[in-house]
């Protein structure tokens, strides 16, 4: 490809300006502010359009930057030779979108179609490739050491990434830094802490599911209440019973009874007294007790008197005793006998009377005793009353009541002792219950502390889960970086094995040409050092002279261009004030070398410069060139 001519309708400071390029070496000369960079920008704008996207550091985009100072049209045209075709690109930047008109031979194309065709005609040359490869900016290397460094990184870059601008090593270093930054943010402890806590939570949950931790306190409360109620009911009962017993026993003892037997005996006594009373009552009450002895006495006395008469008669009959006796044997005897018998009878009667009297007297005192006792009994239990069957009946009823009281009190006592037994058991129960309750409360406290631990662990786990989420996001980033590094390595090796070799070969050819065969080839297989081969020995690149170094640098740059071009096309090389920092000697050498390239390869060279020396030196070196003054 060769640039033929351009016409600026309006672009920055230029207005209606046309320019024609030579086939070979072109030197475009202009002092500062003459518009060299505007001119270069115009060429780029014609080839690739004027992008609004890419802005300058000062924030002004290219469009604004190159709007025509004097108003009027904004755009122009560029004519070039590509693949044997004369191509005319005409652009109008005022239109939006940019208006393009592409004329190839007789045919004219517009818009999208024109852009597409232009890309094809430029053999895929992109703006970036243009910038990085065929347009060569100021060469900053002043020192030899710097030059060597620049050269080796250029070679390394080209053979490692296929581009002089892209550095595999720097990219990997950049990615390593990024990876380390991600890794530093990863909390390695979190995962272990998380699983530790999850384990503890599982254990706690299992422990808590043990039925021993069931909350049975409500049941216990009920049981406790029940026990309390039962206790108070029994105590009440006990008190009531004690009262009843006390009352009954008080009544009984007041009345002189201690047990059923004492009541029975008492009743028996009263009954027997009453019976005695009733038996003796008639004798004691009538004359019976005096009359009988009296009658007996009188009868005895009468009989005694009769017996005495008879005895007298017996003694006084026939005067004498014999007679009397005889008489007696007769009448007297009979009378005497009768008298004697009667006297005996009378004595018997009198004795009987005495006996009867004495016994009567004795009977009277038994009755009185019975009566007295009865009255005593009645008095004690009933009060004033006569001895009567009613009174006895009343007494008996009363005694029956005492008996009932006695029996009831005995029953109560039995019941009381039963209650006492129950109370004892209840107290024992309460003690056991209290122990159980204590145990239960202890378990509750245990359960509560476990629950508290569980709750706080769960909170910690949810916090850790967030950390883990962040961790996994970071880990993914690390993985992505590692993947990027892996892939870059793989690609870089691939490039090295194809581009690297190609570069070496191309550069070697060029070097041999420029150095007039002093150096035959370049060897960049060692990453750290570049060697030049004289055919007989390898010379480290940093040991060659500064001049040779510049030649080699140009050769490598050019090789990169050739790599990009392939077989298809030869692009012009554009030097944009590239040699401003070079001293005269160096510039002379470089220009001579470039002149050689231009001639040998039929490559168009365009050098923008603000110095007059380029033209001077080219002339000196006898290189033909076209000088264009701005």
């Amino acid at each position, binding site marked *: 490809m060769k640039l033929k001519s351009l016409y600026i309708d309006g672009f920055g400071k230029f207005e209606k300006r046309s320019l024609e390029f030579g086939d070979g070496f072109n030197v475009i000369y202009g002092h500062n502010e003459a518009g060299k960079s505007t001119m270069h920008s115009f060429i780029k704008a014609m080839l690739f359009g004027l992008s609004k996207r*890419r802005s*300058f550091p000062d924030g002004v985009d290219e469009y604004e930057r190159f709007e025509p100072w004097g108003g009027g049209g904004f755009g122009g045209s560029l004519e070039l030779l590509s693949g044997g075709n004369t191509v005319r690109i005409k652009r109008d930047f005022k239109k939006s979108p940019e208006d393009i008109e592409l004329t190839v031979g007789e045919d004219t194309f517009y818009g999208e179609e024109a852009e597409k065709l232009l890309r094809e005609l430029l053999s*895929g040359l*992109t703006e*970036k*490739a243009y*910038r*990085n490869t065929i*347009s060569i*900016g*100021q060469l900053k290397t002043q020192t030899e050491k710097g030059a060597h460094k620049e050269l080796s990184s250029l070679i390394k870059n080209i053979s490692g*990434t*296929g*581009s*002089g*601008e*892209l*550095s*595999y090593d*720097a*990219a*990997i*270093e*950049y*990615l390593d830094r*990024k990876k380390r930054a991600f890794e530093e943010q990863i909390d390695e402890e979190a995962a272990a802490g998380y699983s530790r806590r999850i384990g503890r939570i599982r254990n706690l949950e299992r422990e*808590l599911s043990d*039925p021993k*931790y*069931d*909350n049975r*306190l*409500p049941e216990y*409360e009920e049981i406790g209440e029940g026990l309390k109620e039962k206790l108070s009911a029994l105590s009440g009962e006990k008190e009531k019973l004690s009262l009843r017993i006390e009352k009954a026993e008080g009544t009984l003892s007041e009345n002189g009874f201690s047990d059923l037997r004492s009541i029975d005996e008492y009743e028996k006594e009263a009954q027997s007294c009453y019976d005695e009373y009733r038996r003796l009552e008639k004798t004691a009450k009538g004359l019976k007790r005096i009359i009988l002895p009296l009658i007996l006495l009188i009868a005895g006395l009468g009989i005694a008197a009769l017996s005495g008469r008879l005895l007298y008669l017996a003694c006084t009959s026939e005067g004498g005793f014999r007679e009397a006796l005889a008489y007696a044997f007769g009448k007297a005897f009979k009378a005497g006998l009768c008298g004697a018998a009667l006297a005996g009878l009378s004595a018997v009667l009198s004795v009987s009377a005495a006996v009867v009297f004495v016994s009567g007297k004795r009977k009277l005192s038994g009755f009185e005793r019975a009566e007295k006792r009865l009255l005593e009994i009645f008095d004690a239990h009933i009060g004033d009353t006569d001895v009567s069957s009613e009174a006895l009946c009343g007494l008996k009823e009363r005694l029956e009541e005492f008996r009932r009281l006695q029996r009831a009190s005995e029953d109560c006592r039995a019941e009381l002792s039963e209650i006492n037994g129950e109370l004892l058991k209840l107290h024992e129960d309460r003690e056991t219950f209290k122990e159980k309750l204590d145990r239960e409360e202890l378990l*509750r406290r245990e*359960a509560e502390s476990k*629950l*508290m631990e*569980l*709750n706080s662990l*769960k*909170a910690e786990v949810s*916090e850790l889960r*967030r*950390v883990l989420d962040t961790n996994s996001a970071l880990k*993914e980033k690390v*993985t*992505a*970086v590692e*993947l*990027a*590094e892996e*892939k*870059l390595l793989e*690609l870089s090796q*691939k*490039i090295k094995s194809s581009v690297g070799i190609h570069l070496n070969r191309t550069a070697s050819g060029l070097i041999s040409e420029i150095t007039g065969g002093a150096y035959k080839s370049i060897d960049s297989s060692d990453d750290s050092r570049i060697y030049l081969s004289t055919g007989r020995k390898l010379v480290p690149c940093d040991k060659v002279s500064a001049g040779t170094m510049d030649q080699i640098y140009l050769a490598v740059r050019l090789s990169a261009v050739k*790599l*990009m071009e392939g077989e298809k096309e030869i692009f012009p090389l554009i030097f*944009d004030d590239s040699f401003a920092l070079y001293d005269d000697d160096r510039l002379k050498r470089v220009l001579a070398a470039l002149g050689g390239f231009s001639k040998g390869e039929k490559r168009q060279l365009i050098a923008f410069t603000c110095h007059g020396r380029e033209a001077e030196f080219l002339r000196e070196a006898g290189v033909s060139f076209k000088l264009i003054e701005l």
Partner: protein
Amino acid sequence: MRFIHISDVNIGADPDSDKSWGKERAGDFKETLERVVDRAKEIDCDLLLISGNLFCHQPVTSELSEINLLFSRIPATQIVITAGSRDRLRRNSSVRNFKWSNNVHYALSDGHDSIKLPALHTVVYALSLSDKKTDIGSELLKIKEEAKEEKDYVSILVMGEDKRHGSSPAPEEPEESLWDSELTYCALGGKGEHTEPGRMKCAYPGYLSPLGMENPGDHGMLTGDISIASKRILSLEFVKMSRVSYIPIRIEINEGVGNAELMRTVENEIKRRGEENIYKLRITGKRNPETEFDLSPLKKTGRIEDIVDETEPEYDFSKLFEEHTDDIIGFYIGSVMKDSEEEPQRLEKKAMYYAVDALLATERRSER
């Protein structure tokens, strides 16, 4: 009769423990409940219904005491509490033997509790969730039958949603099955967001205080009036009680936005929406490949829980591919894009970003 209905108070939650405002946030849950209690006093509330998850975990006695003390301050308000899915009744629950103030009724039955409040002419059917597999569907049928019997009473159901038993015995949407029942009001719980106003018979008040970004929007209580005579709801409204809201913000940037501008945008956005709120920033859009957002100072501009940087460097890969057909960038892009017909894997794409980014970041800056 004036009532307040809240649910999912989540006492004990500590959602932002790793954040600078975590402590304050952890205290919010009880504080919001305190404000509800104060409000109950102010409006002479007769009935406070808490449908589940008063606590966010099994409460221990000390926690119960603290809350009970709070409730004992409003003796004129009857409080009915049911256990929810987070504080569900277990055999070992401490609440089983806890003595509440006499105006508090905590449902402890395995089935449901019917709490009669004669002074309010109301019977409250309270259904606590327990670890037993209670057949909630049939329990609801029983409640509906009971409510039919209690003609002279306002009947109210209080229950939380059982997420765990979810599909099986519990109806998917309890409100659907309750809509045409005799019940006057169904105080439901367990849902993050509150019911839309207008749906008065069955309502969810939403979480009293949000638990995180998954509960965006306003949070608070439902308050309403029930006519005892007609046994109908006269009014029901949502009142915001939580001071804090979780707000996701998406900020779309373009290539021209740098760190400083992004900061300004975020600051303004936070100022506009309230500095007490908690934000999650999602930054999307294309950023200048040369701009690396440093998001850490952003977190100091307010309560920003998380920042997700979804911005993609403004790399036009197909253009880059065209520009770098002969070098490693082109090869890389080509290999990823051509590897398969499908969209490249996320990880692969990410790796490509990193690789291209690294190469371009370290590219020797040539003149333009």
